[in-house]
């Protein structure tokens, strides 16, 4: 079933939790709502479920206005962050709850039992049907919650930070397992997360939200490679930000400590966003941005180096091979081989991806002086 939210707005005590948000989830699609806390992602999910009522806007299930049906009849499977299992019921009764609450074509108790066993098998919890929720681990509880939501054969599956309360390893397992279930059952699925890794790994499409608005809605690859706004760039992955000035097709910092070709960006102040992999250390003595090492830390197989450059001591982080000896207070040169410049355009941001070749033309000899401040 296709889910369409159109122009949804919702205010809490004068603050906009959702500000004219529109979102379409295609039938069978697995979509992640990603954003920091307070970005409105959970409010949007709950509005689609019918647990919240929007101030304005309409939610459509296929072409039917959802407001016309009671929440009980929407056929929404909702999974809560803290499971919301019925504490006083056994696993079996938890999962059967929705089947027993049915008004139309009620199932016989034997059929309900059969269905519950199938679902327990699906969520790999066979044999635990007699347990109470308090006798299960967090990961098991969340799987019971999912089985309970799937029991009513929902037209849409909505998950609110489903793995948020679990530890990292269980989270990883459940993620893979949720993906498998989705592929097997084909439910239209929308889930909320603040964990970018979870969103990028699990979803067909990621919708990044911030301050009650959708910043970007795209595939995981597009979100990472062509972030539409500075927010998306900095929210996804690691990033360093340097304020630059764009003029005559070049982005510069401090008398050209940094001087990059930026093509069609309009003149004016802009932000240069760099990921660690957009920076390379200059090892061949060629030109580069001079910097002073302020810290290094070991991250996996790489060494994450933080340097300061420019008059205002802007910090840039990049990765060097672990075996490269780099000490604090060391001077070195780096080269920009990627990254993105965001300038203020007429409609939001104009952005341009920097080519690796655009690292030329450092006035580095002149810049040497900056280090002797």
């Amino acid at each position, binding site marked *: 079933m296709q889910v369409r939210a159109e122009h949804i707005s919702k205010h809490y005590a004068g603050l906009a939790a959702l500000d004219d948000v529109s979102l379409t989830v295609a039938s069978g699609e697995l979509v992640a709502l990603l954003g920091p806390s307070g970005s409105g992602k959970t409010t949007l999910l709950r509005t689609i*479920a*019918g*647990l919240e009522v929007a101030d304005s806007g309409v939610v459509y299930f296929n072409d039917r206005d959802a407001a016309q049906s009671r*929440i*009980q*009849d*929407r056929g*929404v*499977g*909702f999974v*809560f962050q*803290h*499971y*919301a*299992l*019925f*504490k*006083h019921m056994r696993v079996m009764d938890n999962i059967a*709850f*929705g089947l027993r*609450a*049915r*008004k139309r074509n009620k199932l016989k108790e034997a059929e309900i039992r059969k269905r519950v066993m199938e679902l327990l098998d699906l969520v790999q919890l066979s044999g635990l049907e007699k347990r109470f*929720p*308090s006798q299960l681990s967090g990961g098991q*509880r969340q799987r019971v*919650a999912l089985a*309970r*939501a799937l*029991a*009513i054969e929902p037209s849409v599956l909505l998950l609110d930070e489903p793995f948020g309360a679990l530890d990292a390893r269980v989270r990883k397992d459940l993620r893979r397992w949720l993906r498998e279930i989705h592929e097997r059952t084909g439910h239209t699925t929308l889930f909320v997360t603040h964990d970018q890794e979870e969103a990028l790994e699990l979803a067909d499409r990621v919708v990044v939200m911030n301050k009650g608005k959708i910043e970007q809605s795209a595939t995981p690859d597009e979100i990472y490679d062509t972030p539409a706004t500075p927010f998306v760039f900095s929210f996804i992955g690691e990033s360093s930000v340097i304020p630059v000035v764009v003029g005559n097709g070049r982005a510069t910092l401090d008398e050209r400590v940094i001087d990059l070709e930026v093509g069609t960006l309009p003149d004016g102040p802009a932000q240069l966003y760099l990921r660690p992999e957009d920076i390379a250390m200059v090892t061949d003595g060629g030109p580069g941005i001079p910097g002073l090492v302020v810290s290094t830390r070991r991250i996996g197989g790489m060494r994450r180096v933080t340097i300061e450059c420019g008059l205002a001591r802007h910090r840039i982080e990049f990765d060097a091979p672990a075996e490269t000896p780099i000490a604090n207070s060391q001077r070195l040169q780096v080269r920009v081989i990627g990254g993105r410049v965001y300038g203020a355009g007429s409609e939001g941001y104009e952005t341009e991806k920097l080519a690796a070749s655009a690292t030329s033309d450092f006035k580095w000899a002149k810049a040497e002086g900056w280090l002797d401040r």
Partner: protein
Amino acid sequence: MSEAATAARRKTPRQVIGEGPRTRFVLIAVALAFLGLMLIAPLLVVFIEAFSRGLGVYLEALAMPDTMSALQLTLLVAAIAVPANLVFGVAASWAIAKFDFKGKSFLLTLIDLPFAVSPVVSGLIFVLLFGANSVLGPWLQDMGIQVLFAVPGIVIATIFITFPFVARELIPLMQQQGSSEEEAAVSLGAGGWRTFFLVTLPNVKWGLLYGVLLCNARAMGEFGAVSVVSGHIRGQTNTLPLHIEILYNDNKAAAAFAVASLLAMLALVTLAVKTMLEARFAGSLAAQRRH
């Protein structure tokens, strides 16, 4: 550190928080002395005085027709007031804990009103409301309904006084539990009643029972408000507490204490049941927190 030294240290557990043994002894002694003087001694006196003239006088006092009718009235009032407050209390806590609406905090304050107001004042309120010179009084008289100095007045006053017990017990519990289980039930297709009886009620059952017990204890023991509205008609509108006062004022101390011991027994039984429930309740609450 050597193993022997480690073992020695383990043997003498050091109190990290707390006072020295002498201070602790003094504090505990003071607390026990106070408890004994203010609570245990009076309770013992009730029973000693009750049996001071022997078992015969004791049983005779209990068997008096006025005592029996007072006991019956007390049980009748409790049997009406407690279920009424059970329903009111559950409805009020459900509304306050699970929904947001204008005037919520006002309603919360209102529920506490019977705790804040002196019971005598509560009684007077009903005299003013239903008395002969009130707005409702003449109309009730025309209808032939006797409220004041009759059972309805006593029931109304008791309901008023005991209203907060159930609600006060349930509201914090329901607020702590939140609404997500109810939301889950509703999203699974359950209607309002089904959600209430299968999800909400089982989650608060221990707290509810506890609230009902306290409510019952107070309904049986209430003196001030009932005293004002009852009219003290022996054998008709005297509840047990009122009956005890009358016996005492008639210089029938042994009889008064005999009836008082009956009331005290009711209180002790209530406390015993409450303690049992608390142990049970604490367990299930802890389990819910673990959840």
